Structure formats: structure tokens, C-alpha cells
């Protein structure tokens, strides 16, 4: 397979097209605009739809419309834009519609900055809109993984009839790395008999709806959705472990931060410190079992994030607060360095233990 050098944003867009994405609705915002630009160039050539919406609110509702017809559809934005999409995402979840949403995170709150950040973890995993619902959240840490997870994001969205999100950041979006695409990608087809695409007088009319005025009925519908979530939590959590077998200190980091953290783990090992890394690839469902198992013999954990500490709550819950979970983070667009993380590891572990 040919290796291509591509920006994360562009690779992600190409991967979406190869995964059967037929409609893309976007709105410019740094650092994800290359996704829109790539779609604008490619979509007309493959008979797909690219449309620059009047706002992020417009874009997410166009996604709602296209998803209602059973079409594979995607939108992308960065942090402040995702906040604007929150309303639509809640409706999409409440209407049981599949779609893929990209967040190439930047620093916040407010207009914040434009440099890489992971400060939208809480938003993505806990409250991407009002109401009782979840979104499956993927956290790639290489450009290749941006590609690989997009196909999975579309498939799981269809299988579970729910929105899925790729939670990337400005670093992954802007960097170029070698990437390979499968030569012949088959696109999985799923049942779309629920779609509002015109009944051709052959079936009863389909209704896409999130309004249920009877409390009992609404409760039932939410409970049904949570049964699906339970299944997802059991079957779809993903994480990679690195040198955790004999680790005395287990680091937990995702996305771009996981790359930096892995370098820090290598530096620690060179100094004789038994460090390891668990890298969640899904943030919801959170890979709690992976973390619990990987840290069974460790004496402490260290969560590293580009935020003031958001994922750390889930790490503590994963091990039922049975061990100390330390935190190191940079925020506002500052990227932690391997040396900074190494210092933190050394402080916690008290230096080399042979």
C-alpha cells in the first residue's frame, strides 16, 4: 500500500469519503478548516454534497436532515463551533440518527486560542447537549489512526443509530504524517428502513422525531437508548497498553498527548523507572477495564492531558480510587514536553527503582 504524506485534517476527510460519506456540511474555523476545503474540492468529483452552511447551527441541522434520509453524513468544527452544534447533536441523538462529528480541539473557554487543546473532554463525554444521551467518542493519536477510526465511526453510528465523534486536536489536524489507505475499501451497508426518504406509497410513513410529551413514554425511549449504551460500553471500549505489564507507574493519556507521554515513558525506562502507558482510543465508552487491569500491579497512576484535568475523574472511577492518581497537564494551547512529564514521573516514583 502506498504511503502518502498528508495533514491529519485532509487524511480524515479523504477517509470519510472512502467510508461512504456522501454529504458534508461545514463552517470555517481554525484549526479544522482544511477538512472543509478538502471536501469542497473532492465531493463534487464523486457525486457527493459539500455545502458551506451559514453557521455551525445551520451545518448540524443540515446533518440532521441528511441523516434523516439514511445518507452517510459528516460535519466538522473546532471547540467554539462544537458548542454551537450542541443543540443539534442533542436532537440527532434524541431522534436516533447516525452521523459523524469531528472536533479538532483548540484552547478555551470562550474564543480561547487556536492552538491544540484537550479541554473539551467533559463536553464530548459528559454533556454534548441537553438531556440523557451519549455520543461514541474516538480519540486518535496519529494521522493514520484518524483515518482508521473514521470508518469505524461511520459503522458504529449506523449500527447503534447514534452520533459518533472523532475528538482530535489542532496538533493532529495540522501535522503531516505518512498514511496509507486500503486499496479497495468495501462500505458496510446497514438497515435504513427507518429513514424519511419518501415512502413511494409502499410503506407507512416514517417519522424522525425527538418529541415525546408523555413522561412515561419518554422515559421508556430513553431507557431503551441506555440499553444500547450498556451494550456499547461492554463491546466497544478501546485502548492500547504500552509497557504496562511490569509497570510501577501507569500513565494515562489520549490523542496527541499520548504521543508525548509515550516518549516520556521511554525516557523513564532509560532511567530505570518502570513506567507504562494506557492510551484510551475511545473516551466514551471509557476503557475502564483496560485501565484497571493495566494498573493492577502499579503503585500509582499519572493522568496527562492538555487541560486542567478532565479525564482524570474517569481514571479515578475506573480504579475506584484504590490508588493515587496524579495529574500533569498544560492548557490554553501549550503542548507538554516529554521532559516535563518525565520530571513528574520522577517526582512521583522517587526516581529509579531497580
Amino acid at each position, binding site marked *: 500500500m502506498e504511503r502518502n504524506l498528508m495533514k491529519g485534517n485532509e487524511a480524515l476527510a479523504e477517509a470519510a469519503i472512502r467510508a461512504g460519506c456522501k*454529504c458534508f456540511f461545514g463552517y470555517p474555523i481554525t484549526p479544522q478548516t482544511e477538512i472543509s476545503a478538502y471536501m469542497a474540492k473532492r465531493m463534487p468529483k464523486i457525486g457527493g454534497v459539500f455545502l458551506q*452552511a*451559514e453557521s455551525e447551527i445551520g451545518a448540524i441541522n443540515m446533518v440532521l436532515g441528511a441523516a434523516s434520509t439514511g445518507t452517510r453524513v459528516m460535519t466538522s468544527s473546532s471547540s467554539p463551533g462544537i458548542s454551537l452544534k450542541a443543540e443539534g447533536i442533542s436532537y440527532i441523538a434524541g431522534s436516533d440518527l447516525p452521523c459523524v462529528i469531528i472536533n479538532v480541539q483548540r484552547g478555551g473557554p470562550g474564543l480561547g486560542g487556536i492552538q491544540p487543546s484537550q479541554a473539551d473532554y467533559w463536553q464530548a463525554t459528559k454533556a454534548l447537549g441537553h438531556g440523557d444521551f451519549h455520543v461514541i467518542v474516538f480519540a486518535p493519536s496519529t494521522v493514520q489512526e484518524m483515518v482508521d477510526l473514521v470508518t469505524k465511526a461511520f459503522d458504529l453510528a449506523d449500527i447503534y443509530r447514534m452520533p459518533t465523534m472523532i475528538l482530535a486536536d489542532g496538533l493532529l489536524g495540522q501535522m503531516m504524517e505518512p498514511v496509507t489507505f486500503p486499496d479497495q475499501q468495501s462500505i458496510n451497508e446497514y438497515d435504513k428502513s427507518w429513514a*424519511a426518504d419518501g415512502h413511494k406509497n409502499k410503506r407507512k410513513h416514517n417519522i424522525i422525531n425527538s418529541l415525546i410529551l408523555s413522561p412515561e413514554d419518554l422515559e421508556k425511549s430513553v431507557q431503551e437508548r441506555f440499553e444500547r449504551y450498556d451494550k456499547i460500553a461492554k463491546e466497544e471500549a478501546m485502548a492500547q497498553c504500552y509497557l504496562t505489564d511490569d509497570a510501577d507507574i501507569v500513565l494515562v493519556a489520549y490523542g496527541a498527548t499520548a504521543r508525548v507521554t509515550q516518549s516520556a515513558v521511554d525516557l523513564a525506562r532509560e532511567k530505570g523507572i518502570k513506567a507504562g502507558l494506557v492510551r484510551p482510543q475511545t473516551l466514551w465508552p471509557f476503557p475502564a477495564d483496560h485501565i484497571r487491569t493495566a494498573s493492577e500491579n502499579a503503585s500509582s497512576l499519572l493522568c496527562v492531558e492538555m487541560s486542567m484535568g478532565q479525564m482524570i475523574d474517569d481514571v479515578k472511577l475506573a480504579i475506584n480510587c484504590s490508588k493515587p492518581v496524579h495529574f500533569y497537564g498544560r492548557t490554553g494551547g501549550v503542548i507538554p514536553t516529554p521532559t516535563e512529564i518525565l520530571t513528574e514521573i520522577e517526582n512521583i516514583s522517587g526516581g529509579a527503582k531497580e
Partner: protein
Amino acid sequence: MSNTEKTTKKVFTRPNALADVPTHYCPGCTHGIVHRLIAEAIDELDCLGDAIGVCPVGCSVMAYDYFNCDMIQAPHGRAPAVATGVKRAKPDNIVFTYQGDGDLAAIGTGETVHAATRGENITIIFINNTTYGMTGGQMAPTTLPGQVTQTTPYGRDTDTAGFPIRVSEMLATLDGVAYAERVSVDNIKNVNRAKKAIKKAFEYQTQKKGFTIIEVLSTCPTNWGLDPVKSLKWLEENMMPYYPLGVYKDKEAQ
């Protein structure tokens, strides 16, 4: 065969596109009339199997139960964006939205104006009854100067609450709009005209002419505090002078 059966001809029946269910609309509300006109147009154009309706938040949010075509419920104000997504994904379907004045001209102004200026090939049925019906009669963007509502208890003061928006006139200035007409359903003559306008808008859509909007002056007896007949009179005397009926844009006539 009895004599009566031989001589009786059915002259009025429920359109096929309209579901045989009771509606939740208040007595005297004109939503029912407009629903029927849309359903008749769908029947006459034989497009029930291709039609997809989008109804956002407002009194008509549950219209998905009343039309027999595929239906989508949209967030408040976002119907034109949702309809855009539907139409772009399925360009050969007939896509319409059914929106109230608060929905279309306040919270959804951006979506409305941009769908119009893109020449999005959809049809908007816009119900202008000068009030927020569902939430109990607050000021709408179309509430008349001096009109009393729950949130303009002393009458709409244009110094503080601004002026009503004339939607058809405003949208008619946009190049993407193929057809814009304001109609009313206050009497039989106007109901027939409204029917013609709605059908024409759907026909334009099938011919891919661009964005079409039919603004329908409607009554809200409950929130106006008037009985149905007086409401129709109020519409004629107060709304029509401010919102003159007529065709504001017709691409074909130009």
C-alpha cells in the same frame, strides 16, 4: 342500488395525504385549513410517496402525526437547514417545511435567509399569526405595533420592541427566491387563492426553479382572546393593511 346512492356524488373528502386523526389545534385555529391545502396539493401533484415534511417547534410541531408522507421534527428555527440537508441528500424528493412566525422570523432568521439566498429547492409554508401560539401568546417578530401580547402587555412599543418584519417582502429581494407570495385563509376566496399558491410553489419545486415560500396570514383565537369569527375579522382589519396580500416574487413572471 338505492336511488340515493345512484344520484349522490362525493364532492368533499379527506385528502389522502392527511391522516385520519383528530388534531390538537384549538377551535377556530386556521392551521387545520392550511394543513388541508398542503395535503390537497400533494394529492393533486401525486407526490405523497416522494414528499418529506419538516416541522420545527411551535404549535405545528406535531404535524408529523397529521401528514401521511415521511416527516421530520426539527429544532426551533432550524427547519430550513434540516430541509436543506434532506434536499441535498435526496434532490428528487419534494421537501417542505411548515413554520410559524417566531420560528421562521426570530430564532430561525439566519437559516431562513440563507436557505432562500442559496436558492435551496424547497418550499416553506410560513404561518404568520402575529404571536407565539405554543408558549401561550408572547410577542412574535410579526406582532403588530400596539398589539397586546403576554410580553407586550401595554401593546408593542416600537421604540423598545422594534418593528414587525415583512418576511415575503424581505425575502423577495434575494436572487435565490423563485416564488414568494402572501396569502390568507380568512375567507373562501382567499382559501382558494392560498391553495393555488401552495400548489404552484410545489410545482416550481418539481421543476427545480429554486426557493419558494408561501406566507399565510392566520388566526390564533385562543391567544388573541377573540372568538373564531371575530379573529377572522381582526386579521382582515389589522393584519392585511400591514401585510398586504400578493405575489412578491415570481421568477417566471419576470
